[in-house]
């Protein structure tokens, strides 16, 4: 019988530096998110994407709405704006138009972006505003105690659907594509470098881009739907996700117990609001 080497004893090292530290307000860590929540992983993937892009941090601004995902802004050592519920996208629109050289990223949740903020999402996509929208979708309102949201599957139990949800959820990928987003991808927090790649593509793509990140919410959604711990939700992703690039967004519905698509759905080019505006402004005498 092979003898396993004795467990290596660790050294104790002071003044450590996490590889992402330069992007983080480390004096605010650890963050507020629950054990097993996917937000921290999504945030970390976003920071790896920024690292890969090599952008000067002073050219990046992040705007969040309200909710658990809305707290992302507060942990970033960047110009960050934690705005009102649902209004991150119009705030980001103003910021981008006032300072076109800035990379403006909206990082928020499914309830914030698609219920109270749904109108802003479709219109920013329609006008091809040059911002990237990252949506962490945990299928419910986590911070307020686990109420049903615009992505909650039919039948799912939440604190405001105690008998099961009677509403049909949005297919966010299809919604974004239909509204005019020029880049649309979906990943889960289990996707590691695949998620980083999608974020790098979305951030560097000109125009309105959208990445949906499926994430566990064990405290609220997972618990009420008997999905187990965050770990169990990730196992569920591993067993049910089907990686497919270029799929029809209409096929990207998510239903409990059924396979679901992840991958890149849309990657097109079209003129942005700013490009059209600035071209006309130059023509008529202003600088735009």
């Amino acid at each position, binding site marked *: 019988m092979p003898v396993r080497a004795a467990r290596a004893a660790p050294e104790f090292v002071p003044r450590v530096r996490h590889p992402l530290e330069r992007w983080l307000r480390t004096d605010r860590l650890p963050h507020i998110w629950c054990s097993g929540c996917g937000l921290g992983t999504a945030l970390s993937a976003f920071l790896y994407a920024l690292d890969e892009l090599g952008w000067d941090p002073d050219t990046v601004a992040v705007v969040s709405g309200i909710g658990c995902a809305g707290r992302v802004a507060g942990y970033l050592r*960047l110009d960050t704006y934690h705005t009102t519920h649902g209004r991150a996208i119009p705030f980001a629109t103003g910021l981008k138009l*006032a300072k076109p050289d800035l990379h403006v990223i909206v990082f928020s949740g499914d309830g914030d972006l698609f219920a109270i903020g749904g109108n802003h999402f479709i219109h920013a996509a329609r006008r091809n505003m040059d911002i990237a929208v990252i949506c962490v979708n945990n299928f419910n309102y986590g911070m307020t105690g686990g109420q049903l949201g615009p992505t909650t599957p039919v039948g799912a139990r939440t604190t405001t659907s105690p008998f099961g949800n009677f509403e049909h959820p949005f297919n966010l990928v299809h919604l974004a594509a239909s509204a005019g987003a020029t880049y649309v991808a979906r990943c889960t927090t289990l996707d590691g470098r695949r998620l980083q790649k999608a974020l790098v593509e979305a951030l560097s793509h000109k125009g309105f881009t959208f990445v949906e990140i499926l994430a566990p919410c064990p405290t609220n959604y997972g618990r009420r739907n008997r999905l187990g711990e965050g770990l169990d939700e990730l196992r569920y992703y591993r067993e049910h996700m089907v990686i497919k690039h270029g799929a029809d967004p209409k096929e990207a519905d998510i239903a409990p117990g059924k396979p679901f698509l992840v991958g890149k759905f849309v990657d097109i080019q079209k003129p942005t609001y700013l490009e059209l505006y600035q071209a006309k402004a130059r023509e008529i005498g202003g600088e735009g």
Partner: protein
Amino acid sequence: MPAKTILTGVHFMNGDEAIAEGAIAAGCRFFAAYPITPQSEIAERLAWRLPQIGGMFIQMEDEIAAIAAVLGASWGGMKAMTATSGPGFSLMMENLGLAVMTETPCVIVDVQRGAPSTGLPTLVAQGDMMQARWGSHGHYEIIALCPASPQEAFDLTVKAFALAERFRVPVLLMTDEVVGHMYERVEIPPEVPVAPRRRPRVPPEEFLPFQPDPDLVPPMACAGEGYRVHVTGLTHDERGYPDMTPEAHDRLVRRLVDKIRLFPEEYTFYEEVQLADAEIAVVSYGISARVSLGGIELARKAGIKAGLFRLITAWPFPDEAIHKLAQRVKGIVVVELNLGQMSREVERAVRGLVPVHGVFHAGGRIHTPEEVFQGIEEVYRRCR
């Protein structure tokens, strides 16, 4: 040839257009709005003008988006404005609070029309005055100015931008349909001072983004300037970090209120007409103040010495000036196009010294001089 930013000279324009030109002259280069009567002339003029002078115009999907974009643009370093009427003003209330809490300079114009609800879209009223003061949730202080002519609409828009930067606040321009649509002579001066933004005076590593100067206003570091500021509508400390303690909350709310309240001489404007010998004072604002002049003339012809105290600053309310007025006259008439809003403030400031009588109309038309005159007569009878 590039378009002129300041249209120096004499113009014949309406109040809405004067607001648009006042904004441009004051350095505003970002305007976001949603169409609504009777504001649309402001948006239409800026959609035409801003692209020609290096500014940004965008028509948003609703008024909530419009004010949110304005806040974003202000943090992007631009002077920014939105304009609306009652229904849109109601939609803006939550983000007005965000502007107060995050100390975001901007200007919000409300061209008032008949209300509640859709009310009288094309007709005048002054029913949003209390909403201007208390419309957003929580306790705060606000500056609101009321022009009574297109010329003053121009001048007060310039003033509104200066106050927004001075105090790092949203400033409200509470005008009305008649002033907005009334065409008059507007003289635009050769130069208009552009109010500077208060900038950080220390390097980023020493900068505390919500650490106020001695006058309680903190310098503002905008996006992309290297200061990496966290801006939140949550109660926050000097670093901008959320602080959920009662002590931090009270400290912050008090500072946001006091930074305005402690400097009334910088924003308290009013006009006195024929008040030197007046026994009866008419207190009014906006278009109602102009109509009141006709009523005062009728009163004087009838042998009643009446005069006008015109509120140019509605908020913060000029308590001291009104209290002093009450010590000089025998009675006060308040004329406004609602059923009694600013009159409550007048009564409060008068503190029972003299009778206060309201000449109210819910809107849809302006008062007649005769109605004002009758109000003056009524108070005159009561205080003899």
